[in-house]
């Protein structure tokens, strides 16, 4: 069994209005050095197989077809053995 941790990021070329709004909050907190806030997603799940290759294949498919939208997002993931 593997534990998968996926991070989904919006492409740098795509506007992130949410990140901009949150950054305004940082400004009001007095955190004037905070710049370029971008908000993505963190998703974790387990993959019930002992074969790393097939686990990777399944995670890739999950990411490409559902978890991310390849038109505007990139993803990366890690796979750790889990009991």
């Amino acid at each position, binding site marked *: 069994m593997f534990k998968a941790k996926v991070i989904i990021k919006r492409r740098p070329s*795509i*506007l992130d*209005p*949410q990140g901009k*709004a949150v950054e305004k909050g940082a400004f009001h907190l007095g955190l004037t050095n905070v710049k370029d806030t971008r908000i993505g997603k963190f998703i974790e799940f387990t993959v019930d197989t002992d074969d790393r290759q097939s686990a990777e294949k399944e995670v890739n498919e999950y990411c490409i077809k*559902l*978890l991310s*939208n390849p*038109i*505007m997002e990139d993803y990366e993931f890690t796979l750790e053995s889990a009991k």
Partner: protein
Amino acid sequence: MKSKFGVVVFPGSNCDHDAYYALKKIMNTDVAFLWHKDRDLQDSNVIILPGGFSYGDYLRCGAIARFSPIMNSVIEFANKGGIVIGICNGFQVLLEAGLLPGVMIKNKSLQFVCKDIYLTVKNKNTIFTGSINNEMTLKIPVAHGEGNYFADDDTLKSLQDNNQIVFQYSSKEGKLDDEFNPNGSTLNIAGIMNKTGNVLGMMPHPERVCDPVLGRTDGKMIFSSVLNSLN
């Protein structure tokens, strides 16, 4: 024989009954609700993907609805030339399903916009716009938080080259400008169709302006166009 519309119902759809009412009572067509877990399109001639918040808009708007059993049939139907209209959340579902190009991101203002806007009919030679009076803009409400249409330059060029941009946000007189763009959409895009011209996605809600008792009937012209093209 009457034309038959199928209105898909996803968990979280909330404009399905408006669409049903407008088509049944105002347009006088046969209409059936199509449950998202079913696969049967019940011999519909036109499929409507209605507005709402399918699957709570979780993950991304339309991302989960796209994998509903009924969507397999809708995609197959569309690929065979069947007429599909996605309104608001339905437009987002069509984008996620890859039946239309591009994506929706949050409105530039970050606010949910719910108001009447004017639409210029960019392409009058479609099955969705053929019966619209040439001179006029349409006044139709929008109601969405993520209607900011985005696509890369190649996609936008292809949309323009193939006359796939159907509706654009404009002034009452048809002037295209940022000030008339409610959500920041690229090229003021409010509605596009696929290359073959049988799948339309639009953010404004034509079903909300069909009944004369509500003051205006601009939305009727879109459904009339479709009905006229079928007959």
